[in-house]
C-alpha cells in the first residue's frame, strides 16, 4: 500500500496539511505543490496549519514551504512540529511555530467541523467554498458551485455542481430537497446525471459513497 506523504484535512476556519516525515525535501515539496494545484484557485485566502511531524526543517526550507503556499494563495498561519527539529531562530515572527508531542496529533486533526449557512439562492457564476459543512437555505442553480470539505445540504433544489468532501473525505454526503445536479462530486469521485430525462424526483435525496461508488437514495432519517 502506498502511503500518502501529503494529507490535507479541514479544520476550524482553515485547513491542516500534514507532511510525512520520510522522503527528501524536494520530493515532498513537489508532492505538496501537485496536490495544491489540483485544487485550482479554490483555496485562495484559506489559512493553513502545516504539520511537519518529526521532519527536520532548516530556516530556508520553512521559507520555501511558506512561499509555495503563498503561490497558491494560502496563508501559513501556524507550523506544528512533533519534535524540536525546526530552526526557530531568526524567524522574525512571521509564522507561529508550535512544538507539540506526537501524542496530540489525533486531537489536533480531530473531526471538529464548522458549518456555514448560506441564506440565499446561489445563481449561475456564484461559487462557495468552505472547509467544513455548507448548508444552503435556497436553491443552487445551474452554473453555480458548492464545494465543501465536509457535507453539503441544500434546503431547496440542487441543480448546479456539488462537491462534498473536497479535501478527501469519502464519508461526506450531499443532501438536497430536490437533488438534480449537473455534476456531483464526493471526495475524488465525479458523477453526473444520466443523459436524457433527468430524475425529477420530488423527495429529498442523499448522495454518498458506498463500496467505492456514488449512489443516490431517498433520504431516510
Amino acid at each position: 500500500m502506498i502511503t500518502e506523504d501529503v494529507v490535507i484535512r479541514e479544520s476550524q476556519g482553515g485547513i491542516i496539511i500534514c507532511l510525512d516525515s520520510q522522503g527528501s525535501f524536494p520530493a515532498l515539496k513537489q508532492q505538496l505543490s501537485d496536490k495544491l494545484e489540483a485544487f485550482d484557485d479554490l483555496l485562495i485566502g484559506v489559512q493553513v496549519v502545516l504539520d511537519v511531524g518529526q521532519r527536520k526543517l532548516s530556516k530556508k526550507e520553512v521559507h520555501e514551504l511558506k512561499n509555495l503556499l503563498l503561490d497558491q494563495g494560502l496563508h501559513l498561519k501556524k507550523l506544528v512540529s512533533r519534535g524540536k527539529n525546526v530552526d526557530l531562530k531568526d524567524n522574525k515572527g512571521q509564522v507561529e511555530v508550535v512544538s507539540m508531542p506526537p501524542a496530540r496529533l489525533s486531537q489536533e486533526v480531530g473531526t471538529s467541523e464548522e458549518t456555514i449557512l448560506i441564506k440565499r439562492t446561489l445563481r449561475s457564476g456564484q461559487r462557495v467554498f468552505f472547509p467544513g459543512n455548507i448548508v444552503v437555505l435556497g436553491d443552487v442553480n445551474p452554473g453555480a458551485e458548492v464545494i465543501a470539505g465536509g457535507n453539503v445540504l441544500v434546503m431547496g433544489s440542487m441543480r448546479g455542481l456539488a462537491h462534498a468532501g473536497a479535501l478527501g473525505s469519502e464519508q461526506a454526503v450531499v443532501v438536497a430537497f430536490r437533488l438534480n445536479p449537473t455534476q456531483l462530486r464526493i471526495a475524488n469521485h465525479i458523477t453526473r446525471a444520466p443523459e436524457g430525462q433527468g430524475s425529477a424526483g420530488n423527495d429529498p435525496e442523499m448522495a454518498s459513497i458506498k463500496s467505492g461508488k456514488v449512489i443516490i437514495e431517498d433520504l431516510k432519517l
Partner: protein
Amino acid sequence: MKGKVIVITSGKGGVGKTTTTANLGTALTMLGRRVVMVDTDIGLRNLDVVMGLENRIVFDIVDVVTGGTKLKQALIKDKRFEGLYLLPAAQTKEKTAVSPHQMKTLCNELKKEFDFVLVDCPAGIEQGFKNAISGADEAIVVAVPEVSSVRDADGIVGLLEAAGLNKNQLIINRIRPRMVKRGDMMDIEDMIDILSVDLLGVVPEDEIVIVSTNKGEPAVMDTSSRAGDAYRRIARRLNGEEVSMLPLNHSEGLMNKFRRMFKMASR
C-alpha cells in the same frame, strides 16, 4: 417630482434588450409619462437606430459625462411623441469612457426631470454592465425561453443582487405559443422557478417587431402587433396598473397532459 431609474438587462446578447427599451419607452410616453431612454452600449449603439433617431445625433453620453456638453443639449427629442427623449451612446469610444460613478450622477440628474429613466444595458457582465446598473433603482431582466438565455439571466440576477438591486422583474421575450402548447418550448413556470423573480410580462414572437425595428418605429405603435400589445400591457404594469397576463400558457394541450401523466407513471 422624482422618477425611477430602470435598467433593462439580460446578460446574453440578442434577446431583445434594445427592442424592449424602445417599446416600453414609447408605450409609457403614450400613457402620458415623461420618459428618457439612455443607451449605455458605447461603441455598439443601436437604440437610436431602432427609434429612427440616428440622423439627429449631435452629442452623446460621453460628451455629457466628461463635462463638455449640457445634458439638455445632448437629449434627442422623439419625432413622434411629446415627452420621449433619447440619450444616445457614443459610437467611436469604448465602455471605459464612462465610470459607474459618472453614470450614477447622470441618472440622478435625469431622475429629477423624468418619470422613467430606462437604461439600455449592453450584453455581457463587464464595465458596460457595471456602468448601466450603477444608477438604477430597479431592473428588468429580459430572457428568451432558451436554456442559455435563462442561465445568463440567472447570473445577471445574482450580480444585480450582489450590487444591492433587489427589485428585479422578468420579461420573457419571443415566446411561441404554438411551441409552448406542443410542449417543445421551455416552460414559463420552469423559467420562473429557476430565476425566482417576479414576472413582469410575456412577449410573443412577432414578425412585426423585425419590420418595425428596421423601419425605426417601435412595435407598440402598430395596434395589430401582438408583441406591441404585450409591451403596452407591460408599460401599464410599470405605470402602476393591475393588468392581467395574456392567456398564453394556461390552456394546457392534451398532448402535454398525456405526457405529464406518462412521466408520472414511468417514475
